């Protein structure tokens, strides 16, 4: 059997319902006629009961408060008991209720604003970059380089040179350590870093390799380059000191 139901607005609680009734009256909260509102409030509860038996206890408490206020206001002043008068000096229940209403109304308004912000935030997209997973210094270079490592690297370069069998007739130019230092510094300023094996790629003679190596040692001694090696017997990296300190950060 289909039941006829009146669609009643959903109220968050008794205060919400009161605000709605006051709004319907189109008066300021402070000037509202609570006696009339009380009647309407109770009528509403009756309506709610008809459609949905589950009227929360809070609504009943508010109804009782309203009736109490109403009954007090109906009594002429000279008929009120002394006790009541004293009580009234302390707290005026009507005033107290109105204050609660005003406060509740403000929070309700703010919650409306929160709701608007909530929706707005769905449209705000932050600048997003993937997490930058640059390998840290520790991961990339497990070891710093010992002198033995350097010598071993030098030997392998020299061995490679032997294998190549350099033409004997070409006369070795005169390489100076100073020239090589300048060359190294220039290269590093441009690239920031280079590999040890790369360093000798252009070297034509054994003497040039040795001079270049000496230049590297000198730069290392002056702390103008930093030498790093990721693993034992691995490739040695030459870093310009400015690059090296940046990487450490």
């Amino acid at each position, binding site marked *: 059997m289909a039941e006829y139901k009146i669609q009643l*607005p*959903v*109220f*968050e*609680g*008794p*205060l*919400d319902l009161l605000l*709605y009734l006051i709004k319907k009256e189109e008066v300021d909260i402070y000037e509202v006629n609570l006696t009339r509102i009380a009647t309407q409030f109770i009528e509403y509860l009756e309506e709610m009961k008809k459609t949905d038996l589950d009227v*929360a206890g*809070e609504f009943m408490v*508010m109804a009782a408060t309203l009736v109490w206020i109403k009954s007090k206001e109906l009594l002429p002043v000279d008929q009120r008991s002394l006790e009541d008068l004293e009580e009234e000096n302390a707290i005026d229940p009507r005033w107290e209720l109105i204050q*609660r209403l005003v*406060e*509740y109304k*403000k*929070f*309700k*308004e*703010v*919650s*409306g*604003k*929160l*709701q*608007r*912000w*909530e*929706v*707005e*935030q*769905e*449209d*705000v*997209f*932050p*600048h*997003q*970059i*993937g*997490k*930058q997973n640059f390998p840290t210094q520790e991961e990339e270079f497990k070891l710093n380089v010992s002198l033995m490592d350097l010598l071993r690297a030098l030997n392998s370069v020299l061995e490679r040179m032997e294998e190549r069998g350099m033409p004997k007739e070409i006369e070795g130019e005169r390489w100076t350590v100073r020239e090589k230092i300048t060359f190294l510094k220039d290269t590093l300023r441009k690239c920031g870093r280079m590999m040890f094996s790369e360093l000798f790629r252009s070297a034509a003679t054994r003497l040039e390799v040795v001079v270049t190596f000496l230049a590297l040692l000198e730069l290392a001694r002056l702390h103008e380059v930093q030498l790093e090696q990721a693993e034992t017997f691995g490739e040695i990296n030459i870093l310009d000191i*400015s690059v090296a*300190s940046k990487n*450490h*950060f």
Partner: protein
Amino acid sequence: MELKSIIESLLFSSSRPLSVEDIRQVIQGVGDKSEDLSLKVFQNVKGDKIEQELRLLQDEYEELNRTWRLTCVAQSWQFVCLPEYAPWIRFFTGEKARPPRLTPPALETLAIIAYRQPITRSEVEDIRGVSVDGVIGTLLERKLVFQQGKADLPGRPSLYGTTPEFLQYFGLSSLDDLPDASELRRYAINPLQTVGKEVERQTEEKECRPEGVEPAVRQSELFPKEDDNFENLNSTHE
């Protein structure tokens, strides 16, 4: 090198919003580690100064009139796109992962907690005039509020406050962004209990906000101003 530019580069390359303290630590770290004097210039820069520069940057982006802005949410700074481009971004990146929207009772409860924190459940109920048991459970679950401690009252009821996630969720830079913050925070239901807390909060605020520095622009200010008659939006009974 300008401090402002250093800050900008950090914000641009960061994969997460950065707080003033994050930025300060980086700048100090670089100064500490480096022997290059030019990198040490801002080594001991103060948070206030960084915040000022952030605001300058924020204004610059505003003036540039690009499609992104620098914003501060939950005290952390990041670049965001203007909301009017959301349809295209959304098509491209997919919907933002966000939980379902909050119900009106949850929003009301949250608003009360936000202004009156730390607050007990029964104080919230006094203001709302209804029980908030289930609602607070939801808010706790969504990490928008948390238990801040216990009130010095019979039964030692829990005190609730809002989390940084609350600010993030609504795009607020701090609690001061809430409308009428000073007025709505002022009077409390139980003055005896909250007076001490109020003083505490005020001193905290002083510490984190240097004098003469305006609160940051709220993300919601990215949106065109609407009339403030938000009553219509929220009421279920118009």
